[in-house]
C-alpha cells in the first residue's frame, strides 16, 4: 500500500508531463518555471536545513568507537575506526562517505535451530555503492549540457562509461548499473517482510522517482531519440537567464519534471542524508575527550550535593566509625 501510493505519485508526475506538454502546450511551465522553482527550492532548502542543523551545538563528544583507542604505546591504535585527532577523524569520514565503511561492516543475524550466526553480508553495501557512484557519474555526464565547450573530464568520463560501444548511440554502463541498483533496493524493500514493515512511503517514493528518471532518460537516448542540440541550447538558456523551452517531445519534459520534483523534494526528505552524514557527531569527532577539553556552550552550574552537606548528615556515624572529618 505504501509502495503503491508512492508509485501512483510518480505516475501522476509522468502523466502531468504528458498532459501538459503532449496534449496541452505548457512547455514554458515544465521547461522553465518548474525547473527554476525546483532549483531554487533545492539550493535554499539545503542551505536552510544545514544551517538549521549547524545552529544546534554539539555539546558532547560522542564518537562511536569501532576500534582500539589510543592509550598505551605498545597497543596499536585503530586510527580510522577510533580516531584520536582531527585528521584521523577526517580519514574516518572520508572512508565513511567515499566507501560506506559502516555498511561494509554489516553482518546478518541468522537464527537457525536455536543457534545464532552472524554472516558477513555485503549486498546492501554493494548496491548502495553501485547506486551512489553510478548516479554521481550520470550527473557528471550530464554536465555536457551545462558547459560549452564541454569540460575534458566529462568527455573522458563519458568515453570510459561508454567503452562497450554497443548500439548507436552507445549505451553507458552506469545507466544499467543505476537502474539495476535501484531495482535491487526496491526489491529488497518489497520482498523482505522486515524491510516492508519498517518502510514508509517516503522510502519508496524516491526509488520510483529514480526509476522514472532513469527510464525516461534511456528512452530519449535509445528509443525515441531527442534532439540533443535543442536540449543543450535550452539548458544553456536557463543558465544565462534567457530561458526558452526546447521544442522536443514530452518524454524529455517527463524526465525534466521528475528531476525537478526530486530537487524540490530533496531538502525536506531523507535524501538530506547527503548533508547530514557530514554532521553526524558519532562519526566526525575524534575520541580525544580525555586528552583535550571540549566545551559545551550551554554548560551551566547545577545543584549538587556537597561534601559539607554529606558530612553534616552523616557526621556522627562517621565519627563513630573512625572516619576522618572536615568539621569535628
Amino acid at each position: 500500500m505504501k509502495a503503491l501510493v508512492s508509485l501512483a505519485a510518480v505516475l501522476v508526475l509522468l502523466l502531468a508531463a504528458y498532459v501538459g506538454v503532449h496534449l496541452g502546450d505548457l512547455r514554458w511551465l515544465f521547461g522553465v518555471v518548474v525547473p527554476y522553482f525546483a532549483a531554487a527550492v533545492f539550493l535554499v532548502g539545503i542551505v536552510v536545513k544545514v544551517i538549521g542543523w549547524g545552529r544546534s551545538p554539539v555539546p558532547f563528544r560522542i564518537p562511536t568507537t569501532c576500534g582500539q583507542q589510543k592509550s598505551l604505546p605498545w597497543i596499536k591504535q585503530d586510527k580510522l575506526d577510533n580516531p584520536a585527532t582531527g585528521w584521523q577523524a577526517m580519514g574516518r569520514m572520508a572512508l565513511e562517505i567515499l566507501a560506506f565503511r559502516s555498511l561494509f561492516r554489516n553482518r546478518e543475524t541468522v537464527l537457525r535451530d536455536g543457534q545464532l550466526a552472524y554472516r558477513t553480508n555485503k549486498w546492501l553495501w554493494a548496491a548502495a555503492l553501485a547506486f551512489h557512484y553510478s548516479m554521481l557519474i550520470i550527473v557528471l555526464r550530464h554536465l555536457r549540457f551545462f558547459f560549452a565547450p564541454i569540460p575534458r573530464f566529462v568527455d573522458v568520463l563519458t568515453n570510459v562509461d561508454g567503452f562497450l560501444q554497443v548500439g548507436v548511440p552507445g549505451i553507458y554502463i552506469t545507466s544499467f548499473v543505476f537502474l539495476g541498483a535501484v531495482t535491487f533496493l526496491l526489491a529488497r524493500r518489497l520482498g523482505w517482510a522486515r524491510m516492508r514493515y519498517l518502510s514508509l512511503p517516503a522510502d519508496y517514493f524516491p526509488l520510483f522517482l529514480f526509476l522514472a528518471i532513469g527510464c525516461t532518460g534511456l528512452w530519449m537516448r535509445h528509443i525515441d531519440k531527442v534532439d540533443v542540440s535543442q536540449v543543450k541550447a535550452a539548458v544553456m538558456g536557463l543558465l544565462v537567464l534567457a530561458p526558452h523551452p526546447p521544442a522536443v517531445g514530452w518524454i524529455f519534459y517527463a524526465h525534466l519534471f521528475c528531476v525537478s520534483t526530486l530537487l524540490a523534494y530533496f531538502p525536506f526528505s531523507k535524501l538530506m542524508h547527503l548533508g547530514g552524514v557530514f554532521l553526524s557527531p558519532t562519526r566526525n569527532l575524534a575520541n580525544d575527550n580525555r586528552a583535550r577539553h571540549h566545551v559545551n556552550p550551554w554548560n551551566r552550574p547545577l545543584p549538587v550535593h556537597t561534601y559539607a552537606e554529606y558530612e553534616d548528615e552523616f557526621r556522627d556515624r562517621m565519627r563513630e566509625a573512625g572516619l576522618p572529618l572536615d568539621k569535628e
Partner: protein
Amino acid sequence: MSQAHKPDELEYYHPEEVHRVDYQPPATDWRDTPTVFRPGSFIYPSKPKDLEHIGFPNGHAWHPTDEDWKLPENWKRIIFDGMRERLQKYRSFKVFMDICVRCGACADKCHFYIGGGDPKNMPVLRAELLRSVYRHDFTTFGKILGRWAGARPLTPEVLKEWFYYFYQCTECRRCSVFCPYGIDTAEITMMGRELLHLLGLSVNWVMHPVADCYRTGNHLGIQPHGLKDTLEFFAEDVEEVTGVHIDVPINKKGADILFVTPSGDFLAEPGIYTCMGYLALFHELGLNYTWSTYASEGGNFGLFTSADMMKRLNSKMYAEAKRLGVKWILGGECGHMWRVINQYMDTMNGPPDFLEVPKSPITGTVFENARSTKMIHIMEFTADLVQHGKLELDASRNDGRRVTFHDSCNPARAMGMLEEPRQVIKAACHNFFEMPEGTIREKTFCCGGGAGLGTDENMEMRLRGGMPRGKAVQYVQDKHGVNVLAACCAIDRATLTTVCDFWAPGVKVSGITELVANALVMKGEKERELNFRKEPMRDEVEAPPADSEEHPTVEAA
C-alpha cells in the same frame, strides 16, 4: 496495583517462552499495533519521594498497566517544549531526526530484537517512535501529508509506547556501529527518556539509585560507616586466603590517587571478589591511594536519566579529588561509568586543573590519553604494570579457569578499550578463548541489563536481550570448555550471571582484577590454597572432547 505474581516467583513470566522467537512482523502496521505491558517485560515506576529528592517534576503515583497515567494537564505542551529545547541543544538529535533512510542495516543488530522479535525493537523503528511525532509537529511535510509522510499525532498511547520501548533499549550503541550515518539510538533513547521524565514518568530501578547516589554517594545507598565495614570485611577475607594483612585507606587526605569503582562491587557476588582484588593489588603495589565514601560510586545512573543528572552525580569525583588533595583518579571496572568519564566528565565538570596528568608511580608511565580528564581505567593501569613486568603473576593458579572475555558496551563503543583487558587477562590466565567474531570488540553484545534495565521484574526482556551474548558464551563453552566469562563492568557481573545461568549454565562470571589478584604472588603470602571465592585454587577442569572442534551452525569468520 495488584499483580497475580511477584517478579521473583517463577509464574511471573514464562521462561519457556523466551526460547520462542518469531521474526514475522505483525499484520498491523506498527503505528496501529497497541503496546501490551506483559509481566516480565517492563519496569515498575519510580516513587514520587525519589523524584522530589532530586528535584524532578510531576512525580505522581501511577503504574504502566493502568489505563490512565495521570498526566499533568498540559502534558502535550510540556513534551513539545521539551522536544524543541532538545532539538536546539543537541545537533545529534536534530540530525538523527532528519536523515535516517531506513536502510535496515541496524534492524537485526539489537539484542532485544534478536532475542525478542518485536519489530519496534529494531533500532530504526525505536527511533521512528519519536521521529513520527517530530514529523507531525516540527516539519512542513509532516504537517501537510500527515500519515503519508510518516507522521502521527502525539497521544497518551504514543507515550505508553515510548515508555515501553525506551526502557527496552540499553543504550549499548551496537546499532550505531552499523549505521551508515552513525545514527545512535542511545541518543534517541536518552532524549525519549528525558521527555518522559518531564511528565514524571520514569522507572524505580533508575530513579531510586539516582536519589540514593545523590544523598549517600552511591547507588546502593551505603552510608559511610557501612562502606568502611564492608571494605574492612573484604580485607579480612583477603587476609584469610592470602595471609597478608591489608589496610584500607578511606577518605585519606594527602593520598596520591583517588580510587572510584562502581558500588555494585561492594554488595553482590561476583563483584565483591573483584573488589577484594583491588585491595590485594593496591596493597601489593604499595600504592598511596584512598577510597572515598562521598564519591563512592563509579557508575552513574544519571547517564540513564538526563544529561543534567549525570553531571550532578559525576561532580562528586572531582570535588572529592580536590578536597582530598590527590594527584589523579583511578577508576574501577565498570561499563557505563566509562562512557561518562571518557565522553562527558571533562566537558561537564572539567577541566580539573588542580589535578596532575596521571602517572603510574610504579612504572613512571604518563597517561597522555587522559591528559585533560586526569582519570584512567584500572585496565589501562594494570596493562601498563603487566607490560613492564611489575606484577609477579602465577597464571597457573587460574588453570582451573577456561576464560572468555565479554567486551562491555561502553568501554568498547564509547572508548575503544579493547586490547588492554585482553593483555591483562592473558597475563593472568593460561586458558583464554575469544567468542565468535561478530559478538566481540566493537560488535559486542549487551548483557541485556544495561541503562537501568537490570531489575527482576524485567526478567523476560533481560533474558531475551541476553540471548545473543548467552549463545555466544554457550558456543565457546561447547567448543573450548569455557567456564569463566570475564567482564570489566559491574552491571555485567550482576546481570550476566543470570544470563549465563539461563543460556550457558555452568559458566561463572568474574571481574578481571579478581583473576589478576588470584594469580598475584604477594609478599609474605602463605601457601595459597583458596581463591577469593574460597574455592580450591587449582581445580582442574576437563578439556572438551576433541570432536567438538566445530560448531555446526555458528560461523567464526
